[in-house]
């Protein structure tokens, strides 16, 4: 496909320890033009492995996950892939979460059935990562 205005789909990896959340986000992003889900993970370690294997444009990362949590996963991702977009996706965002993610320049999105805030944050994260 070619032509003015063409933009390839943003390829994303999603990490969440809740299988139903993964299934929902997979379905929602698949229905939304401009996105392609290329990998799913259930903890931070798997997310990094998927990122290494698929080299997505961005990773959506839940924070509270067993084994390797999202905080550790995001730190590992930013070290290994500084040009990759990252968005923290979480049920709660207290002071620690906001400060920690703020210091890493990672946008936090609260979990919602409405995909728009997350999709828009993913787009911003890709542009932000590309600018650095």
């Amino acid at each position: 496909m070619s032509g003015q205005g063409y933009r390839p789909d943003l390829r994303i990896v999603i990490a969440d320890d809740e299988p139903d959340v993964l299934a929902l986000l997979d379905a929602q992003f698949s229905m939304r033009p401009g996105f392609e889900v290329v990998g799913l993970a259930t903890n931070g370690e798997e997310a990094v492995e998927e990122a290494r294997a698929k080299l997505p444009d961005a990773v959506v990362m839940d924070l509270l996950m067993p084994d390797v949590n999202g905080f550790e996963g995001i730190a590992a991702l930013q070290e290994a892939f500084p040009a990759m977009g990252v968005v923290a996706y979480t049920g709660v965002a207290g002071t620690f979460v906001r400060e920690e993610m703020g210091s890493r320049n990672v946008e936090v999105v609260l979990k919602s059935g409405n995909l728009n805030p997350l999709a828009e944050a993913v787009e911003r994260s890709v542009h932000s990562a590309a600018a650095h």
Partner: protein
Amino acid sequence: MAPVKNGDREWLEQRALNVIGHELRTPASTVRGLSEVFAAGVDPAERPELADALVRNARRLEGLVDDLLTATAVWPALPVGNASRVDLVGHVVLGWPERDGLSIDGAGAARARTSSISRIIGAVLDNARAYGKRPLTVSIATRGGRVQTAFDSPGPVLPDEDVRLALEPFWRGERAVTSSPGLGLGLTVARVLADHEGGRLWVEARPGGGLVTHLELPAA
């Protein structure tokens, strides 16, 4: 069991906000999102895994709301109906579908609402299943018009704090929110329902490690 201290209360309240936020937001947002996926034209018959997820999360949401209401011990939310004779051994067996890992000593029946006993015993067994080792030994005896049940669950030696706060809402011991879903209300709900049925529920550290949960109810 020592009472909750002032510092504990503040900590538990903060914990409550975090746990409620995480555990309620996830199924609520999943129900909304999946509903909108189907409303957008996806056929549930072609995506049965999403339809199952919708039902599962709706049920989870309902269960969480029910636990929250019960744990507050506000009487309109507590079970209604008449008490009847409830066989305790039968409820223990029903609540432990695993083939092994359970030993029952004695027998007895309580006079209580069946739904309450089912939830009390289910919560105690869930707790033993999640935190304890095998076998779980359940001893039942009747004395002086009261039926006493002890759930002896071996496990690691628990910090005093874990035992002291085990029945407090949102306390989940050393298991972080990340380890398993749930509000951490199971034993709180069990305690409230035991009180509601004219009995009581308490815990103590098990010699050698683990937890013993005691349930006392009016005998049938």
